[in-house]
């Protein structure tokens, strides 16, 4: 069964600094999708960034970028120039066909 592991329950970053959130996953599939979702206190799930497993190039979305290491089954999220509004729970997710699995989440605190 596919599992997603986020080993950092909590992370903290100073405003304007850079932080990296870790995610690993376990799968025997070769073609799948990976996502990072942000969940602010409102509890809405907001897509931050996605990565197709067949693409070698790391996805980038403004201040958000990923380091996708397919062989290592690692998918970390880097947030540059952190802002107060980035404070939230971040969930890593794996999707193969209609099966979507989430990690336990990392709570990110941004210090002014």
């Amino acid at each position, binding site marked *: 069964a596919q599992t997603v592991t986020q080993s950092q329950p909590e992370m903290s970053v100073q405003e304007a600094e850079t932080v990296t959130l870790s995610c690993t996953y376990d799968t025997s599939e070769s073609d799948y*999708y990976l*996502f990072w*979702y942000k969940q602010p206190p*409102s*509890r*809405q*799930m*907001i*897509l931050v960034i*996605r990565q*197709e497993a067949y693409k070698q190039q790391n996805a980038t979305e403004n201040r958000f970028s990923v380091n996708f290491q397919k062989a290592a089954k690692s998918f970390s999220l880097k947030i540059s120039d952190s802002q107060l509004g980035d404070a939230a729970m971040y*969930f890593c*997710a794996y*999707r193969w*066909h*209609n*099966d*979507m*699995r*989430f*990690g*336990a*989440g990392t709570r990110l605190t941004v210090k002014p």
Partner: protein
Amino acid sequence: EPEVTQTPSHQVTQMGQEVILRCVPISNHLYFYWYRQILGQKVEFLVSFYNNEISEKSEIFDDQFSVERPDGSNFTLKIRSTKLEDSAMYFCASTRSYEQYFGPGTRLTVT
């Protein structure tokens, strides 16, 4: 920008009662999903729905759960006889391809 909507935002029910959670997916999406998130825990997949039938379901989605797309716009999750442990946020999501768009969630409280 089109979005997934869910009603109600908060539902309080007594144990043993039936509840129906409603979702309106994005109109041109073809795949629909329900997830739940118990407070403080991770988001868990419940069920996926395509072409008017369930395509996948998790071990959580037992006989007390059912889903329906009664018309061209709504997608519902029914819990037949609620239990205390059903208290959670329930998220609906939809997609046309691989990127899922989530609704704002319904907070279900079972007393």
